[in-house]
């Protein structure tokens, strides 16, 4: 008898808990709150990981100089293509690379400097002291500075990190 009452109570509790969302309309998120994984991000990560592995293979003597250089050129080419937001959709990679390579080198230099000295503001390019949360020149929040420039900066810092 006790078991039967226990069973009924169990069934009732379970039913209430399971059905409640349908009546209250409370729902689980259908999409990720910030859809931060996209195919592009994955590809960028893969391209950067490949570069990192290449450096590792070279450092541990698995690649000789010639292979290393040709693969590095090839992988950097891939990585640059992935870093360029517009590149998806089959743009001819070569023009992109031409455009991007000089910009990228500038950016790498900037990032290296910023990492060494402090943070660079995304809107006015003022280099702030390390740890600053707002730009000393224009007052822009440094951490949340979005925009295409910052995106490429962050990606390029990955390359810079891989190279270091």
């Amino acid at each position, binding site marked *: 008898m006790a078991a039967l009452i226990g069973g009924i109570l169990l069934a009732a509790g379970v039913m209430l808990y399971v059905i409640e969302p349908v009546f209250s309309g409370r729902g*689980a998120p259908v*999409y*990720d709150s910030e859809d931060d994984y996209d195919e592009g991000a*994955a590809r960028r*990560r*893969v391209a950067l990981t490949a570069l990192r*592995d290449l450096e590792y293979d070279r450092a541990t003597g698995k690649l000789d100089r010639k292979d290393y250089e040709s693969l590095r050129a090839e992988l950097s080419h891939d990585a640059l293509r992935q870093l360029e937001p517009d590149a998806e959709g089959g743009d001819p990679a070569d023009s992109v690379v031409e455009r991007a390579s000089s910009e990228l080198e500038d950016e790498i230099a900037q990032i290296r400097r910023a990492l060494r000295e402090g943070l660079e503001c995304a809107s006015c390019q003022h280099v702030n002291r390390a740890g600053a949360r707002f730009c000393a020149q224009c007052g822009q929040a440094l951490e949340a500075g*979005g925009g295409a420039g910052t995106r490429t900066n962050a990606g390029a810092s990955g390359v810079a990190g891989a190279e270091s």
Partner: protein
Amino acid sequence: MTVLGEIALWIALPVALWGTVLSFIGGRSGRGDLILSGERTAYVLTLLILVASLGIIAAFVGNQYQYSYVANYSNRELDTYFKVAGLWAGQRGSLVFWTLLLSVFASIAVFTNRNRNREFMPYVSGTLLGLLAFLIVVLLFADVSPFERLGFTPANGRGLNPQLQSYWMTIHPPTLYLGFTAFAVPFAFAISALLTGRLDSRWIAITRRWILLSWFFLTCGIVLGMRWAYEELGWGGYWFWDPVENASLLPWLTATAFLHSIQIQENRGMLKVWNMALVVITFLLTLFATFLTRSGLIESVHSFAQNLTIAYIFLGFMGGLAAFSCLLIVYRLPLLRSENQIQSFLSRESAFLFNNLLLVGITFAVAWGTLFPLITEGFFGETINVGPPFYNRVNIPIGLILLALMGIGPVIAWRRASPRNLRRNFVLPLVAGVAVLGALLLAGVRHNMALATFGVSAFVMAIVVREFWKGTKARARIAGEGVFSAFRGLVRRNRRRWGGYVVHAGVVVLFTGLAGAAFDVVVEQELAPGEAISVRSAFGNEYRLVYESLSHSRPRAAEDVAENDWRWTALMTIYRNGERIGVTRPERRIYPVMEQQSTEVGIASSLLEDLYVIPKDVDLDSGAERVVFEVKALPLVPWIWCGGLVVAIGALVGLWPTGTVPVRAAAARRVRGPLPAGAVG
């Protein structure tokens, strides 16, 4: 409690069906409330199945023999912890236990993904809940309910098979089942990826941990099972290519292949269809391992009187799942196209591919051998068994090539490597291998396969050690750190890679231990107390075992059966090269209620070899103290367990929360701003 458990199982059925249907509808229509309701059923099912499991355990502990499952697998005299383990002692309970573990993993998957990977989740929970619903339907309607009553209450149960009365019973099956059930989660994500069409490597990135977790438990379960079989006489040593052993090895082989091939997909965007196939096959093989081997289908060669209903149900279900998955893969073929091609035969991806082919080759050989009796029975009306010689002939050469690949793979660079560079990298390890080979030949070792194993093992070990050394050195140079912190930083930065190398080292030690079997020495002799038996091991150690006495615990009145077992214990003193190193107590046991016997061997381990003592022939009736002993000197067996331990540690290194930047965090930082200097590199 037991009645409540049965009620809980009945409540679980509509709940599981509700959750399955709602999850799929919710995913299709994008309705969050339906999805939430579906996800809640996962938690609820865990609770309900837990109540059902506790109900079964309560019936065991409370000696409720009106339940046929309890009456068949327990008796009053059984120790309490074996009664608790009664939950997985037989097929019916195992089914409940499997369902319980699956529901726990489903809940963990739902909980950890409550705020992320949301597009996948409705179909993931739908798939997992569907599996649970199927299992519950089987439990309730396929004549395998553990709550089935006999109609009368026997005074005592039939007891647990003596061979299962070992402390391993409480460790080995749960570990293996954890491995089996954990693999359901990657399977569910794969199905979800196919259904949603999100077929980039994301589902792999999400489930990588799960795959490794499942692999870790499978490995531990198999090695623990080997240890149990080694200690339990009558199971033919640590490995006998028995159908049940084979069945647990099959998913391990394909899971190992999968662990390697996903790296090709992640790095190079290749092998997408292959990976889908592997995840489906591995999951089906876990079902095969749990249910078909216990259903009597395979053992039907020995007894035709088994009830095969459950076997056919599972066979049908597996067939259905396989067909459904195949259709989905074919439907999604356009999205599963390879993004790259293998650039060179000399590349890590081609080494991985080769490793996959070999692992699948072994899988096929083992599956063929396991199913062969069934196939011949079906087609020719007579059953033909294949024995260990078949498996050894096929698998030892393939295993050796795989072993060698474990050394070659890590040294070859991704994409392409130049032969000149390979030569330079292989010189030192090859020298190590040849040196070991030469030393063994000089020492008079003449067993070809064992020699090959030792040589290749030395080669691979040299490569693994050098990888660690070179990586540490490179890191110390680049980061300007000391050797120790460079080593720690190295492993922390890429736990998967270095954990993998530790696993490789463990496998090398394990293989070396297996090869030791070529040099077993066996002697047999009848002894009276005070007499001794001598054996000279392959390592040249002279062992002398002095049989001191035989004691027994048999009660005076033979009809007094209040004891679970009566024991005859021989006491032997062991001398190595004239020096006393200890005693061993091999035993014979009688289980009066079941009218069965078992033998507990005596094992004396050292670093290099085991001494294995079997009391072969004990006169249990007359009380005479003359005993026939079989003594084996088994070289390198301790290395098997040691290697297994290293493999487990390596898997844990890979599983440990990683210090590298996860995909999501990296992507989020990409939007927010530059990475902190320490995050990359």
